[in-house]
Structures are given as C-alpha cells and as structure tokens.
C-alpha cells in the first residue's frame, strides 16, 4: 500500500490524514528528511505559510523537499502548501517575504481575497477537469496563483482564477479539498 507523507510542522495535518484514509491509502506525519524520502507521495497541508516556511528552515527541510519534487513522485500543496510550492510568494510590500520551494512555475499571491471575513466556499467553475467537476472548494484566507508557466495545466477555476493546477507531478490547490468529505481531489492526486 502507498504511504502518503504529510508535512507535520503546522496546520491541518489531521484533515489530510482523514482524506487519505477515505481513499484507502496510509498516511504518516513527517518532520525529517529521511522520513520525507521514504514516502510514495507527499502533501504540504493548509496552515500558515510563514509558520511552515520558517519551520522548513529550522528543520533544514528545503533540500529534502526539493529532492522529493525532483524525484517525480506526486506532491500536493493545499492553500499554504500551494504557496510553498510556488516559485515566488507575493504579499503587500510591508509584509515579509515568505521563502518557497520554487517547484511550481507560478507566483502565489498571499491573502489575495482579503482577511478571514472575505473567506468563502463555492462550486468550481464549469469546465473543470472531469475528475473534480462541481467540487465544492473551501477558500480560507486563500492565495491566488498567477504568472503560470507554459507547462502548468489548469484543472479548475473559480471566478476564472486558477484554483487547482498541475505541473507534471506537482499539484497545487488554493482551496482545501481536505475539508469536507469529498475525496475526489485526493483520489485524482494519488492515482497520478
């Protein structure tokens, strides 16, 4: 059986573990380079991107995570996780820059919709990839992905903004497919 690692520095690790269990795979919380290297697939969960980014520095996980991405095994980031995958994380000028992995050819704009009072949930726009058609996305202080590279495939949009993208083995969702009980995004990711 496949083992899916979930980066356990901070965030909704438990929600991803439940989603992985729903599609019949095993998951483990990972915090060390050797644990990351052993996984068949890896998830960077939702949480606070600054907190997780600083944790990656503190635990010296930048290179193990980049090596995992290079290995071709499936790698998914949701919300904060999607920010960490991007080549650059952008926010207002007054705010500190968040260091990212740079394994997805896209720029992540942090808190692009506003504060928590601007968070929302809604059905993906028509025309999404068949595997996730009419998926209900929960967007919490969500980022947006812009300046997508040519090799980035947009699997779903909301209000015409890309919200689920894929570049080879790297998947990014600006929403939280781990919340709620629809396992289709995790299922598609794991079967890739």
């Amino acid at each position, binding site marked *: 059986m496949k083992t899916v690692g979930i980066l*356990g*520095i*901070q*965030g*909704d*690790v*438990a*929600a991803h573990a439940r989603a992985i269990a729903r599609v019949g795979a095993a998951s483990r919380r990972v*915090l060390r380079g050797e644990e990351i290297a052993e996984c068949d697939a890896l998830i960077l969960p*939702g*949480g*606070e991107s*600054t*907190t997780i980014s*600083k*944790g990656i520095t*503190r635990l010296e996980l930048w290179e193990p995570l980049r090596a995992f991405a290079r290995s071709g095994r499936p790698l998914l980031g949701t*919300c*904060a996780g999607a920010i960490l995958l991007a080549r650059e994380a952008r*926010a*207002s000028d*007054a*705010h*500190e820059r*968040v260091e990212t992995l740079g394994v997805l050819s896209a720029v992540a704009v*942090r*808190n692009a919709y*506003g*504060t*928590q*009072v*601007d*968070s*929302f*949930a*809604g*059905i993906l*726009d028509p025309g999404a990839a068949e595997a996730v058609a009419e998926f*209900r996305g*929960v967007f*919490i*202080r969500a980022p947006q992905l812009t300046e997508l590279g040519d090799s980035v495939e947009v699997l779903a949009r909301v209000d015409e903004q890309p919200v689920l993208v894929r570049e080879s083995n790297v998947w990014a969702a600006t929403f*939280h497919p781990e*919340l*709620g009980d629809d396992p289709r995004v995790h299922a598609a990711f794991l079967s890739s």
Partner: protein
Amino acid sequence: MSQNETREGAQSYEIKVGLAEMMKGGVIMDVTNPEEAKIAEESGATAVMALERVPSDIRRDGGVARMCSIAVIEGIRETVSIPVMAKVRIGHFAEAQVLDAVGIDFIDESEVLTPADDTHHVEKHGFRAPFVCGCRNLGEALRRIGEGAAMIRTKGEAGSGNIVEAVRHLRQVNGDIRAIQALRDEELYTTAKDLGAPVNLVQYVHANGKLPVPNFAAGGIATPADAALCMQLGAEAVFVGSGIFKSEDPEARARAVVHATTHWNEPDEILAASRGLGEAMEGIEMETLSESEKLSNRGW
C-alpha cells in the same frame, strides 16, 4: 444552480471552523504593538492576539479592561501577514461588531477582559469573523459552541505564568468527553441537562469522542515544556499570553515554544528548545489569588 446560489461567505460555520483547523499545531501569541507582532511572526507564530496590555499587566493594574484600540490592531495588521485576533469583553456584542467591521480574522470573547454582561455571552453565529471562547469543563465548552464558537481553548489562569489551571481544565474537558463516550444513548438527555449543554452537541461528543471544533490550550503557558505538556494532554495548539513578552528574551522564548509545540512528543527536541532562554516570566501561586482575582471564574 448558479454560482451565486451555491456560494457561501465567511458566516458559514464550516469556514469559521476551517480557519481554526489551519491553526492546529501552532502557537498564537499575545502582542501589544507592531514590533512585538513582528517578533512573533519571525519566530513562527500562527497568529497574533492584539491587546493593549498582556494579562499579567491587566492583573497588576486593575481597572476595567476593554477591547484593544483599533489603531493598535491596524498597526499590527500592516506589519504582519499572519491572522490577527483580538479580544472582546464577555457579552459585549457591540465590541464584536466593531472588530467584525474592521475585518479581524478571529475574535476571542475573553475572560481576560472585564465582562460586559454577567448572564449572557455573545450570539456568535451572526458574525463573519469566527470566535474562540475559553472553558473550564465540557459543559462550558458546549455552551460556547452552541452560541457559535468555532474554536475552544482552556481558560487556564491568564497572566499567572502558572500552568496548573490549564492542566486542570484540559484534564476536565477530556475526562468529561471520555465519560460521555461510555454512556448509553438514552442517558445523553439527562447528561445534557446536568452539563447545561445542548443535547445535539452532547450526542456529537458521544459519537465522535471529541469536540466538534478544535480544542486549544491557554492560560499560564510560560515555557517550551509547558506547551509540550498541554499538547500531550490533548490540546491541538497553544496560546501564549504574558509568557513570551514578560520573559527575559522574548525572541528566543517565542522560537523555543514554537519548536516545542511542533515536536510536542519528542523529549530531545523539547530539551533542545529549553536551552539558553534566560528567565521565564515570574509566576503566581494559585493559593495567593482570591476567588474574585481568578479570571477563569468569569463566564457563564
């Protein structure tokens, strides 16, 4: 169905609980100005709590403690990109309306401030901002959730630097949950009556063995080991109030508490986090506080 009919905004309970989920495994730090907020963010805090005075100063100064000034909140929000929380007085729904209007990320209806209503808490469902509330036991937790709280924390004893009350409240809530799991279905109704809690929430706890919202620890955390203790007792994240900025070296202590919270079940890592921190804040022995001085007695 059109997009607009399926779209839900921030008032949705699912979205409120969702933000609480995102704060799991993290440390939420009390700050009183942008400089402290910057240190908190730099150290890896998942959110900051904007306050005029930290709880130990509120305790020392006395007088009425109210919602933080909007200027302080806005100054902090311009400086950091992590979520900004702020406290309102128990029952003061107009303070909550002000924070909701300014677009705060989370509201703490808190016993640390002077209560505005000695009978009722805020009806929390109607706001866009999610609420966190303190509790000492399961009945109190479920009453607050019934009113709309999307996150629960222990009250502990804020500003005391003493972890004993947070431990008591964590053990009490989790013990109450285990006791309910052992009951038969027909026994849940009288239990709900005895707890003073909505029966549907007692039934949820019976079926799931946990609260329907994240359960964090607060009130007296002063060291990395305090944070690890709370996590091992079942807390899903921690709030640190006076413990950081009333210590000798706030920056080092903030980083250390974050590290210990991530590695809560690894003694070697908690050891590493415990080195070279300077003095912790001064603590207060519970026996020296009269019942009227205990902030945790506030809330109904």
